[in-house]
């Protein structure tokens, strides 16, 4: 586990000193984060890195996870898809399961904080416990709800409306609420196993392990096997690129504990790839996930994220931080990270993705310049230290109504 002082070399002394200064003003407060899984997915990853840093600056922080059945996670997966705009039929019986598991968690989950931050829809019902803490309660939505199915959103709104504040990852997700809403982007940890610096030999060993030809360029998409990440679209774009460029495609995925759908998607991807030896479909073992993803991102010639919906897309931040040229969909939180022509290239279709990938493969000096900008963009805006700062500011701001707060 990294200490805050270890970030000084990356973000500078001034930034770290300011964090200690803000923490001092919140000393003694207790913040409780609640989500649905301790491993797998971006939220768990952020919390495992962020919670210890809260403690380091003097804010007591706890992290608790709700419990749920397979049927519960099946319905929350449907919520997730519907919030991303996909049509889902959710029968009343499944809503009943959601409510039943929610009530169990209301009874059983210990409340520890005077500030409670609830992440995503799975634990949203816990707001019913609001009266039992000193407050405030904040709902942190990590999902792209710009095109949310109104039926599902109105079901969730009955709970969301009782919170004291909301956090979204992109302005595109904000809606008319009588509550205060804040824009806080998620972050990556530059010192984590997934993002730490790596030697060339270590990178080469991982590439060799997966049978990727190190002498030819490769295009990489890292994502769990999910329709919303459009892995099939990536294969289609790759095939357009390969008509003119000799290259390989690597799809590197894993499973999250709260995602029962990935096996179906993986089967479709395998069928689409056929027996093409240049398409590497990898299922990264969880125990090697972070090291292997780090190496793959560092070795990739171009990194792609052709998602159809994306809450934020931390995997894009990871690639940008490694100075890689990125082609990514102009959706959700991605345009905050990839500013077209400055820190990467944006696309809106299979053909667009193919065009931009070719641009980067054929113009390495341009790709390198975008990559260098990208790393600085992440350093300033999307590292864990900025994330911690935003949370500390939020906790301070919620105590006041003014737009200018003198401390």
């Amino acid at each position, binding site marked *: 586990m990294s200490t805050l002082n270890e970030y000084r070399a990356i973000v*500078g*002394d*001034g*930034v770290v*000193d*300011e964090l200690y*200064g*803000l923490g001092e*003003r919140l000393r003694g407060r207790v913040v409780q984060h609640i989500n649905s899984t301790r491993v797998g997915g971006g939220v768990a990853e952020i919390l495992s890195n962020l919670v210890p840093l809260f403690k380091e600056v003097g804010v007591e922080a706890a992290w608790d996870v709700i419990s749920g059945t397979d049927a519960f996670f099946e319905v929350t997966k449907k919520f997730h898809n519907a919030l991303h705009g996909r049509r889902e039929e959710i029968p009343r019986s499944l809503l009943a399961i959601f409510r039943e598991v929610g009530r169990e968690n209301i009874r059983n989950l210990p409340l520890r904080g005077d500030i409670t931050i609830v992440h995503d829809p799975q634990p949203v019902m816990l707001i019913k416990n609001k009266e039992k803490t000193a407050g405030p309660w904040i709902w942190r939505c990590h999902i792209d709800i*710009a095109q949310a199915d109104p039926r599902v959103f109105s079901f969730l709104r009955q709970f969301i409306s009782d919170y004291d504040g909301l956090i*979204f990852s992109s*302005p*595109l997700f*904000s*809606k*008319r*609420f009588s509550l*205060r*809403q*804040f*824009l*806080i982007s998620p972050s990556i940890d530059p010192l984590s196993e997934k993002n730490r610096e790596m030697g060339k030999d270590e990178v080469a060993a991982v590439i060799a392990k997966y049978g990727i030809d190190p002498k030819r360029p490769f295009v990489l998409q890292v994502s769990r096997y999910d329709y919303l990440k459009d892995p099939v679209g990536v294969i289609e774009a790759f095939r357009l690129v390969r008509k003119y460029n000799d290259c390989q495609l690597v799809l590197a995925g894993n499973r999250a504990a709260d995602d029962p759908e990935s096996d179906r998607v993986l089967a479709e991807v395998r069928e689409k790839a056929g027996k093409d030896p240049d398409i590497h479909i990898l299922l990264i073992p969880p125990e090697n996930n972070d090291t292997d993803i780090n190496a793959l991102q560092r070795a990739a010639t171009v990194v792609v994220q052709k998602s159809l919906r994306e809450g934020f897309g931390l995997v894009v931040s990871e690639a940008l931080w490694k100075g890689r040229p990125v082609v990514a969909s*102009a*959706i959700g939180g991605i345009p905050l990270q990839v500013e077209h022509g*400055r820190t990467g290239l944006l696309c809106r279709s299979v053909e667009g993705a193919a065009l931009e990938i070719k641009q980067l493969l054929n113009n390495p000096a341009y790709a390198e310049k975008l990559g260098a*900008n990208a790393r*600085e*963009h992440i*350093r*300033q*805006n999307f590292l864990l230290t900025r994330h911690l*700062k*935003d949370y500390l*500011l*939020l906790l*301070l*701001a919620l105590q006041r109504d003014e*737009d*200018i*707060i*003198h*401390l």
Partner: protein
Amino acid sequence: MNKPIKAREPFVFYSRFNLQELTGLKAGNLESLLDLISTVPGSSIYHHTHRFMEKHDYLLPEPPNDFAVWIGDVLGDRTLQEKLAGIDVLQFTTIKDLRLALVEAIDSHLSAYPRARKRFAEKDDEFHFIKSVSVIVPTPYSAESLEAFIKGLKEVSTSSIYFHMFEARLRLERQTNDFSWWLESALLLKTLGEKISSLDPYSFTLSGLRRKIIDILEECAGDDR
């Protein structure tokens, strides 16, 4: 070696943190943009005209104005984009006056080019209004002499440079930047103060602005005494 001249009062470096608050308000064409620019809180006008300064320190200076960027990139109206990007923010000492300049520029453009009303953004490309919530805190750095001031400038974060050069002048309506004010009133170094206030800080990155101010102070300090 000369003993440093002691200031009449110390300069305390402050830092400013920005929390972005979403308003839920959005515009899809010039008319709705104009309506909202006229009515959103001043902290939203401030956010969209200053966000670039803090967010893009690694790039060459960008037009410090989200409205201009959106009008050009999304609506494709390059004439109005240029007009808004060219608004000289330094000539205003209040957000109210800056807002008025934006409103007048868009309004007169709509009168001159009625077809500009027919440009619309796709749903995903609408302009979303965000407010800036500033949290202002003192840093551990302070100075009672020019030498200590230069040392402080080298050590504080760029948020502190930003606060004293941009936010104090316009958002807190102090008329000039804090550095010039202190140099002139507490150290009686009028020429140095004027040299800094005559810079256009919007045409630098924050790191570049810090270097420029330090260069001015180090090079000219002797002449002013």
